[in-house]
């Protein structure tokens, strides 16, 4: 009784405090962005840091425009874009295939999945020295590191997805005499879209990290290389502009995945 009364009391008090509704989600987000920019500017001009370490956002924007207008930037962006795309395609497809095999066959899964499970959260960058020996300083070592990075989350995500396909869907399929191919196309595939989407999302981020970290370590081309060149000549605005460009691309990639790799229907409250 006391609980009910207190709850009623509390919820009764709430409407009186209604003016708090000034903060909407959009206003709060805009405010956060403004605060972040302000803090950046204040920190940059405060004298706490060496001058030029936190350049004004205006300078970064100028450098960004300068990059977009330079041909060499687009060359480096093309190299990195190719590396990431190749790494992503290779890692994701082999990962998805491995996940399907491990998920579909219980014994194979039990034997090999612990390898993936335990290797997944290890730092992949340590493989780079081996990859440099195997594939040289060119795009090969970058692509292979990116591919190895995104292979693991995709494989684990798909394997778990296959096992978690609701068994009642499979029974429904059997009662309607679905062929094996129809079962895959009409039941497994749609049921696997959420795990595939999450594998793609995580995979995209870490394949970008894989490719760019190996570019930063040792390379002659690519955005990682070019950011490091700017760092060496202490052109911090340009270096940050390159990083901003990378983040924008990564975010755009995520938006594309969210938008196109999903099930029809409302996106909440999925069993």
């Amino acid at each position, binding site marked *: 009784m*006391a*609980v009910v009364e*207190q*709850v009623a009391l509390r919820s009764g008090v709430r409407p009186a405090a209604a003016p708090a509704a000034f*903060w*909407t*989600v959009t206003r*709060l*987000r805009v405010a*956060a962005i403004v605060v972040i920019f302000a803090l950046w500017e204040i920190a940059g001009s405060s004298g706490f*840091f*060496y001058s030029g*370490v*936190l350049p004004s956002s205006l300078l970064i924007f100028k450098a960004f425009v300068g990059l977009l207008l330079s041909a060499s930037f687009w060359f480096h962006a093309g190299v990195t874009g190719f590396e990431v795309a190749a790494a992503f395609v290779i890692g994701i497809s082999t990962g998805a295939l491995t996940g399907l095999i491990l998920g579909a066959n219980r*014994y194979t899964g*039990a*034997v*090999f999945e*612990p*390898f993936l499970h*335990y*290797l997944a*959260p*290890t*730092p*992949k*960058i*340590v*493989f*780079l*020295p*081996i990859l*440099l*020996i*195997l594939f040289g300083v060119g795009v090969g070592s970058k692509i292979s590191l990116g591919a190895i990075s995104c292979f693991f989350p995709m494989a684990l995500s798909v394997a778990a997805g296959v096992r978690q396909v609701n068994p009642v869907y499979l029974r429904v399929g059997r009662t309607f005499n679905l062929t094996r191919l129809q079962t895959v196309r009409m039941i497994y595939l749609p049921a696997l879209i959420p795990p595939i989407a999450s594998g793609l*999302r*995580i995979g*995209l*981020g*870490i394949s*970008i*990290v894989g490719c*760019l*970290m190996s570019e*930063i*370590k040792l390379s002659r081309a690519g955005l*990682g290389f070019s*950011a*490091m060149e700017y*760092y060496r000549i202490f052109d*911090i605005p340009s*270096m*940050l502009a390159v*990083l901003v460009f*990378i*983040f924008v691309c*990564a*975010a755009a990639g*995520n938006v594309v995945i969210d938008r196109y790799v999903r099930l029809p229907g409302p996106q909440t409250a999925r069993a």
Partner: protein
Amino acid sequence: MSTITHTGALRRPPPIVTRFLVLAALFAVWEAASRAGYVSAFILPPPSAIFQSFEMLFVHEGLVAAFLRTFAEAFAAAGIGSLIGVAVGYTLHRVKIAGRAFTGWVAASASAPLVLLYPLFLVIFGRNSATIVAMGVVGCMPPIILKTKEGLDNVRPVLLNIGRSFGLTPWKQFWMIQFPAALPTIFNGVRIGLLFAIINVVGVEYLIVFGGLGQLISDLGDRFEIPGMYAGILFVILVSVCFFFITEKIETWLLSSK
């Protein structure tokens, strides 16, 4: 029929046995191929040579010190990240509008290539441990924030009502009910955060060739100390796997003793 499949299943060894047989076979083939000269011992030294060079790593290369340093940095990062992350997670849970505005951002940052911000920290802090720890913090925060919020959001309403019925103050309500109820989920976040911190710490160490296991591997590679380099890589992998395994066991133990 079912009896036949039953005996059929018996004939297969348990998965763990097969797993180790496969691993052993892999090493055997590798050793044989390397000795017979099918693959260059420079590119792929035989496992025996790699295992032998562990001694060199321990005695001459300061493997233990490098390991301790890397893990000290990772734990420092996870400690700082937990303090900030739990506070942020609590805020996102408590201030509903903030939760709706920013949880998506945090989730997006979890899959964003944040580690690439390290040059920024490099110019702020210089080439030292502070940069490395800062990158560890950046890496471990998203899962800790998200899991803290998730844990607090999912506390069963009936538990909160019990607290209210006893007239607990908001502060006591948090420490006596919400926090303990959310603790398993928060621990899970901290654990994932720690793993992400290790990944970032080793990565940045390797990139800027400063301190710990990352630098060790970079140095060995630069000196073309190939078996040693492989041993170092193997060591990092083994340590991460052991670490993952142990924290996983702690987590299940914590959950079962609840």
